[in-house]
């Protein structure tokens, strides 16, 4: 089975790297699904989005990725992110609180809308429904 080298690289450290069969992410222009042998792409990801990775060995998992972009070459996929969290590390109840606080805030406020989007991405990555 074909596979590709995948890495999620955060600003402070490499969060995950390994072999995978499939990666999906949301770019600013829409969802993108990547299989091994994909055409080389450089794409900006959604400011707060979810990335799904199906590793060759092990369970498929999600990660919340903030301010990231994606670089695909013939044999590798690299996701660069200013901030990223693997689903298993996400604190669901904290994210829910965050979402509630952000949505309770001023609707027009740039900051609180961004915070709400981040909290939603976290919850979606953790497999929760943000709208319950």
């Amino acid at each position: 089975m074909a596979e590709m080298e995948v890495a999620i690289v955060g600003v402070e450290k490499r969060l995950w790297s390994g072999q995978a069969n499939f990666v999906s992410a949301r770019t600013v222009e829409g969802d993108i699904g990547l299989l091994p042998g994909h055409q080389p792409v450089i794409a900006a990801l959604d400011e707060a989005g979810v990335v799904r990775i199906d590793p060759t060995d092990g369970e498929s998992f999600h990660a919340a990725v903030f301010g990231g972009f994606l670089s695909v070459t013939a044999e590798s996929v690299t996701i660069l992110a200013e901030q990223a969290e693997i689903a298993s590390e996400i604190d669901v109840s904290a994210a829910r609180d965050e979402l509630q606080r952000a949505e309770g805030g001023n609707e027009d406020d740039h900051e609180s809308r961004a915070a709400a989007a981040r909290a939603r991405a976290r919850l979606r990555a953790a497999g929760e429904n943000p709208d319950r």
Partner: protein
Amino acid sequence: MPASLRVLRRRIRSTKNIAQITKAMEMVAASRIAKAQARVQAARPYSDEFTHVLTTAARAGASDHPLLVAREEPSRAGVLVVTSDRGLAGGYNANVLREAERLMRELSDAGKETALFVIGGKGTAYFRFRNREVSGEWTGFSEVPDYPNATRAADTLTAVFLAGGQESVQRPSDDEGSGAGSSGSDQGGEGEGASRSSSFVPPEEAEGLSGVDELHVVFTAFDSISSQTVTSRQIAPLQLDEADGASDDESSGQSGDSEERQAEYEFEPEPEVLFDRLMPKYLRARVFAALLDAAASESAARQRAMKAATDNANDLVDNLTRDANQARQAQITQEISEIVGGANALAE
């Protein structure tokens, strides 16, 4: 004849105290080096990959983006100087500041005005004491910088760079993005809010600052525990040669065949818009990398300085102890000779 015994003993005591303090600072700095060094290394994949992506994108198009093309007749240059908040780090700050002064002289010889941006309390104090105008200053994190710190500084730099040498930074209501050539590039269902969050908004502290055509950064690069070098680099416009070198180093071996793959790259969104999004992140990454390097260098410099201070204090204690012993011996000898002299006088 040396000073009196009492004075000598007091000096020994205080020198020992100093040695104790400097020793403690040395240990703290030494433990910080290891941590800071680990952070420098952990952060390297990001900046390496970033440079690689940027180089690729630059080769494949978007070559007229302000980040890539040196502006004609640059009139102003921004210089970011990275110093420490605290002293007691030997020549660390002096070296950085000397290099900064040299760079600024060089720039003004080339007919460019300079705008100063300073990180760290020592640099801020240095320039303020000399009544030099500082366009932006950030302090309080030089030993353990984190990414939001870098973001604050870098976003101001991005704002002044985008404004350009003739203009000053305006905090726009709506149309700032158009200056950088962005289009409504977002469609996440959040409507215009999402598209505004993606285009770069200058931070409040940048408002009203005059723009620049070039950005330089002066910091201390951490090569190893025993070697740190003060470095000045132009970070914008991007110098592709340098970026080439960096990406070839890290992907050596595949640089040859990557050449032919360039043409096939696909961009989402198109290169110009992509570059607008990448640019603030690129400057953040560069500033963050500089901060991490500087933090490691600072600890290394402090550790060395404190080791020298401790050694010196211990030498002083040794010398003073010798003097004190001599003084004590002299005192005893004098007392004995007085007693003997007194006894002899009585015996006669």
